[in-house]
C-alpha cells in the first residue's frame, strides 16, 4: 500500500474515531431517553460514514457489520422501529462491537466476535415486521395502494414521478369547460369544473389497529384528487408528539367529474370519530385553517410520514421553512409543511429543496472542521507567545503617554485576542478523554457482574490536547480500579445498606493552573489494614513501620502492589495504580487519594494546564520575581506589628479578623536564608486558598504587578520541580518562576524537600 493511501487511511481512522464518539454520545443520549430525530440522525450519519470509508478501504468485516447496524438505524431514523430502551440497548452493544471492528481494521486488536450482536440486530429488524410494521399486513385497509410507497424513505421521492403527469393540479385532462363556472375561487385555473372539496381529519386513534389514513388519501389521489391543504392545528411540538397518534387533517380537491359515492367509498374503513366532509364547493373557513399547497398530491409523502411514526420527517419542517426558496412563488405560509412547488413544473424542485435542507441541517449538527498538523499549531502558539512577550517588553519601555500615542493598548488587546484564539485551538474539551469511559464501564459491569452507573461532570473543561492524550491510560486504570476494587458486589452493597447499583463520579474542573480530574466511587473504601498487611508481605514497608492513613493509601501506588484476592482480567496485576502515578507525574502532575471506609474512594489527578496563559500576581522574594496564580489568591494583608506571631521555632501564624492562619515564609521554603532578617511588617502576607490545606498566608517581600503570563514548562529542558508550576518570561526577557500553591502549602509538601543549597546567588 502506498504512503498516500496510508495517509488517507489514517484520516479515515481519525474520522472513524470522531464518528464513534458522535455515535456513542448519541446512543448514550438515546439510552437516557432523548430519542429526538436529530440525535438518531447523528448516530445514523456517523455509522453510515464509517461504513462508507470501510468499504472504500476494503475492510470487509467492518463494512458488513456497520451495514447491518446501519440498517437498523435507518429504520429507527425513519420511525419504523421505535427506539425503545430494548432497541437502544442492542444498539449500544452493537456500537461496542463496531468500535472493536474499527480497532481490528486498524490492526490494533483482533477481529471481534460479532455473530451474537449481528443476530440481535437482525432480530430487531425482524421484530419490527411482526410487531410494529402495522401498515403492511393490514387487510382492513381498503386501498390497493402499495404499502411500499409509505414504507419508503421519509422524503418519498419515488412516487413523485409515478403519479404526477395524470393528475396535474390544473386538471387539464378530465376537464370540460363550462363558462358559467368561472369562479373567483379558481383564479389560476379558469377552465376547471367546480371540484369536490373533501375534508378528512382522521381521529387520534386512526393509526391504532393497523389503520393507515394515508391509504385513504392515496385512494383519493387515484381518483384524481389533489391535496390543497393540510391542517396542522392539532400537531403538537416534537417533544409531545406521540408517534402512534394521527394529528394531520387534509383538504383534498377531487375533480368534479368524480361521483360522490366513489369518494364516499374511500372512507368505508375509516376509524370512528374521524371527520369526513365531502362538499361541492370551496369552504372558505377550511382554507383559512388549512394551508394551501400547490404541489400535487404526489409530493405528499413529505408531510405524509406524520401519521406513520416518523419524527425525522417532522423535524425537517422548520428547516424547510427556513430555506428561502420554499417561500418563493406561493404566498409564504408560516406552517408550510411540504416544500411548496411553484406551479409550472410542479414536482421537480421539491427534491432539490429537500436536499438543500439536508445539507443545511448537516451543517448545523456538525460544524465544519479543518485538519491541521499539530506541529504547525504549536509553532503558531510559540510565535504568539513571543508576540505577547514582545508586547509587554514594549509596554515596559514606553511611558503610559507614549503607549497611548503608538496605540499600544489596542495592539495589546488584539494580541491577546489572537493568543486566546490560538490557545483555544489546542484546547479540547476533556470529553474526548471521558468518552471512552461509558463503554469501559459496560464491559466491566458485564465482566464483574457489578452494577455501576456513571455520573460525569465538567466534561466541557478545556484542556490542552497533549494532556488529554496522556491522561487516557491513567484514567482507564483508575476506572478499572474503581470497579474492581472500589465498588462491591450487589449483594455486599445491599447488605451494607447501599443501593445495589454503585456509582462512579467522573469529574473535571480547572483551578488556576491545574486541572483536577476525579474518579470517585461509592464503594467500600480502602481497606487500610489489608493494604498494610499486603505491603508488609510484599516487603514494600517494614513490619514495624508507623504509617498514617494517607501513607497507607499511597501504598496503592507503590510498584508491584496489588491486594486483589485473585488476579482478575481487569486489574490485579499490580501495575495499575503504579502506572497511573508515574504517568501523571511524568505530566508534571500528582495523584491524590482520599478514602473513607465504607463510603468510597476518590482518586484525583492534579494535572498542569500546560501551554496556557495564567492570570498571575508577580511577587518579589529576595529580589527574585515569582508568579502567584491569581486563582489561588484570596486577599493581601500588610501585617501590623504583632499580627504575625511565631508559634514554634519555624512556624508562624497570622491573626486575621479573629482567626489564626498559618504563615509560610517562601524565602525559607526556597532556602533564601539571608532574607530572614526581613520583619513581617516590612513584608506582605498573601492569603491563598489551597485544596488540601485551606487558607494559608504566604509571606513575600512586595507585589510587583498583576498580569497574564504564558506558562513555559520547566520539564521541556529539565524536569518538573515540586512547588513550581512552570516558568514564564517577563516583559524584560527575564524568567519568573510560577508557584504551585497546592504543592507549596499542602500537607504532603515536606519542607525538607527543598534543600538549603541550590540557589546560587
Amino acid at each position, binding site marked *: 500500500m502506498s504512503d498516500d493511501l496510508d495517509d488517507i487511511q489514517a484520516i479515515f481512522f481519525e474520522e472513524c474515531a470522531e464518528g464513534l464518539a458522535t455515535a456513542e454520545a448519541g446512543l448514550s443520549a438515546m439510552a437516557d431517553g432523548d430519542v429526538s430525530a436529530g440525535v438518531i440522525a447523528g448516530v445514523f450519519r456517523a455509522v453510515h460514514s464509517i461504513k462508507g470509508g470501510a468499504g472504500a478501504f476494503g475492510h470487509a468485516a467492518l463494512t458488513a457489520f456497520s451495514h447491518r447496524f446501519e440498517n437498523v438505524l435507518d429504520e429507527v431514523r425513519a420511525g419504523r422501529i421505535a427506539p425503545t430502551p430494548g432497541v437502544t440497548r442492542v444498539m449500544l452493544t452493537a456500537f461496542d462491537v463496531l468500535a472493536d471492528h474499527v480497532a481490528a481494521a486498524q490492526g490494533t486488536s483482533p477481529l471481534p466476535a460479532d455473530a451474537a450482536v449481528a443476530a440481535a440486530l437482525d432480530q430487531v429488524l425482524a421484530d419490527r415486521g411482526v410487531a410494529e410494521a402495522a401498515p403492511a399486513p393490514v387487510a382492513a385497509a381498503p386501498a390497493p395502494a402499495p404499502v411500499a410507497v409509505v414504507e419508503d424513505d421519509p422524503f418519498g421521492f419515488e412516487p413523485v414521478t409515478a403519479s404526477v403527469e395524470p393528475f396535474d393540479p390544473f386538471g387539464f385532462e378530465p376537464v370540460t369547460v363550462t363558462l358559467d363556472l368561472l369562479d373567483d375561487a379558481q383564479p389560476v385555473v379558469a377552465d376547471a369544473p367546480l371540484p369536490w372539496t373533501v375534508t378528512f381529519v382522521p381521529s387520534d386513534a386512526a393509526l391504532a389497529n393497523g389503520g393507515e389514513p394515508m391509504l385513504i388519501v392515496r385512494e383519493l389521489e387515484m381518483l384524481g384528487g389533489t391535496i390543497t391543504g393540510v391542517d396542522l392545528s392539532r400537531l403538537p411540538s416534537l417533544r409531545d408528539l406521540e408517534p402512534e397518534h394521527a394529528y394531520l387533517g387534509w383538504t383534498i380537491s377531487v375533480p368534479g367529474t368524480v361521483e360522490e359515492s366513489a369518494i364516499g367509498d374511500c372512507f368505508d374503513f375509516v376509524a370512528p370519530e374521524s371527520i369526513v366532509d365531502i362538499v361541492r364547493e370551496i369552504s372558505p373557513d377550511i382554507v383559512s385553517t388549512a394551508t394551501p399547497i400547490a404541489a400535487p398530491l404526489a409530493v405528499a409523502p413529505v408531510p405524509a410520514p406524520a401519521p406513520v411514526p416518523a419524527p425525522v420527517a417532522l423535524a425537517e419542517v422548520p428547516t424547510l421553512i427556513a430555506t428561502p426558496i420554499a417561500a418563493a412563488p406561493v404566498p409564504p405560509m408560516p406552517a408550510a409543511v411540504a416544500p411548496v412547488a411553484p406551479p409550472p413544473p410542479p414536482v421537480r424542485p421539491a427534491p432539490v429543496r429537500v436536499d438543500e435542507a439536508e445539507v443545511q441541517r448537516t451543517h448545523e449538527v456538525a460544524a465544519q472542521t479543518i485538519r491541521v498538523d499539530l506541529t504547525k499549531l504549536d509553532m503558531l502558539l510559540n510565535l504568539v507567545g513571543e508576540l505577547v512577550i514582545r508586547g509587554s517588553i514594549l509596554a515596559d519601555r514606553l511611558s503610559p503617554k507614549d503607549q497611548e500615542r503608538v496605540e499600544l493598548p489596542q495592539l495589546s488587546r488584539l494580541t491577546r485576542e489572537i493568543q486566546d484564539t490560538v490557545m483555544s485551538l489546542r484546547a479540547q474539551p476533556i470529553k474526548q478523554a471521558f468518552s471512552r469511559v461509558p463503554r469501559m464501564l459496560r464491559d466491566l459491569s458485564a465482566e464483574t457482574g457489578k452494577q455501576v452507573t456513571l455520573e460525569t461532570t465538567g466534561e466541557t473543561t478545556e484542556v490542552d490536547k497533549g494532556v488529554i492524550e496522556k491522561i487516557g491510560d491513567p484514567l482507564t486504570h483508575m476506572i478499572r480500579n474503581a470497579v474492581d476494587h472500589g465498588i462491591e458486589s450487589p449483594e455486599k452493597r445491599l447488605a451494607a445498606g447501599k443501593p445495589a447499583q454503585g456509582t462512579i463520579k467522573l469529574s473535571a474542573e480547572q483551578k488556576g493552573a491545574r486541572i483536577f480530574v476525579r474518579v470517585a466511587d461509592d464503594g467500600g473504601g480502602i481497606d487500610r489494614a489489608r493494604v498494610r498487611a499486603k505491603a508488609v508481605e510484599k516487603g514494600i514497608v517494614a513490619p514495624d513501620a508507623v504509617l498514617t492513613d494517607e501513607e497507607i493509601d499511597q501504598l496503592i501506588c507503590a510498584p508491584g502492589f496489588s491486594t486483589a484476592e485473585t488476579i482478575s482480567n481487569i486489574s490485579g496485576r499490580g501495575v495499575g495504580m503504579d502506572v497511573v502515578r508515574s504517568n501523571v507525574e511524568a505530566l508534571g502532575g500528582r495523584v491524590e487519594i482520599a478514602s473513607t471506609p465504607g463510603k468510597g474512594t476518590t482518586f484525583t489527578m492534579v494535572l498542569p494546564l500546560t501551554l496556557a496563559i495564567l492570570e498571575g500576581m508577580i511577587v518579589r522574594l529576595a529580589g527574585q520575581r515569582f508568579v502567584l496564580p491569581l486563582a489561588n489568591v484570596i486577599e493581601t494583608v500588610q501585617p501590623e506589628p504583632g499580627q504575625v506571631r511565631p508559634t514554634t521555632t519555624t512556624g508562624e501564624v497570622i491573626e486575621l479578623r479573629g482567626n489564626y492562619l498559618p504563615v509560610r515564609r517562601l524565602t525559607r521554603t526556597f532556602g533564601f536564608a539571608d532574607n530572614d532578617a526581613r520583619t513581617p511588617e516590612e513584608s506582605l502576607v498573601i492569603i491563598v486558598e489551597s485544596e488540601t490545606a485551606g487558607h494559608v498566608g504566604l509571606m513575600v517581600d512586595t507585589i510587583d504587578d498583576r498580569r497574564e503570563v504564558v506558562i513555559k514548562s520547566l520539564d*521541556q529542558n529539565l524536569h518538573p520541580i515540586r512547588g513550581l508550576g512552570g516558568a514564564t518570561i517577563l516583559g524584560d526577557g527575564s524568567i519568573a518562576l510560577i508557584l504551585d500553591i497546592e504543592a507549596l502549602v499542602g500537607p504532603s509538601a515536606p519542607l525538607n524537600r527543598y534543600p538549603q543549597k541550590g540557589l546560587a546567588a
Partner: protein
Amino acid sequence: MSSTQASDERKIVTFSLGEQIFGIDMASLIEIREWDEPTPLPGVPSYIKGVTNLRGTVVPVVGLAERLGWTPSVIHARSCILVVNVDGKQAGFLVDEVADIVLIKDSEIRPAPDVEVGEPSVIAGLVKTTSRTIEAAQGSTDGIMVLLLDLDALALTRQLDLAA
C-alpha cells in the same frame, strides 16, 4: 558542517575550565552566549545554576565545574555559556573561556585514562590538537591535550532522577 569535511573528521569547540581544556562536538552546539545571571531554581542540585531565556524557551544553566565536582567557576569577563542540545533537550553549560574551533580526526581520539575529574565516565576521549590559540594561552608548543566531554553522560535528567 561543511561539505569538505571528511566522514572521519569532526569539528570540536574547545574551552577552558579551571586548568583543563575540554572539547565538545560542534554538532551539539546551539550557540555560545555571554554569561547572564540565570533565574535560580529552588530544590535542585547546586550545579544547576538556574534557568535562562533562550529565545522564548526556558533553558537550565549548569555550572560545569560543579557538575564535575570541582570548585565553582569564578565569573569573569570572558565567562560564557555553551548552549547545547542533548537528546532533544537544551542546556547551557557555564565555562571559563571558549578557546577555539578545531578539526580533529576520529582516529586521533584516544580512550580516556583515569582522568581526575569527579566522574571519569563523562570524558569520551582525549585528543591532541595543535591549535595555536590554545598553545599560546597555555605557553606550550607541542600540542595540547583536549578532554572530549560526553554530553549524554552529563544529561541532566538522568543525574537529577538519582538526586531526587
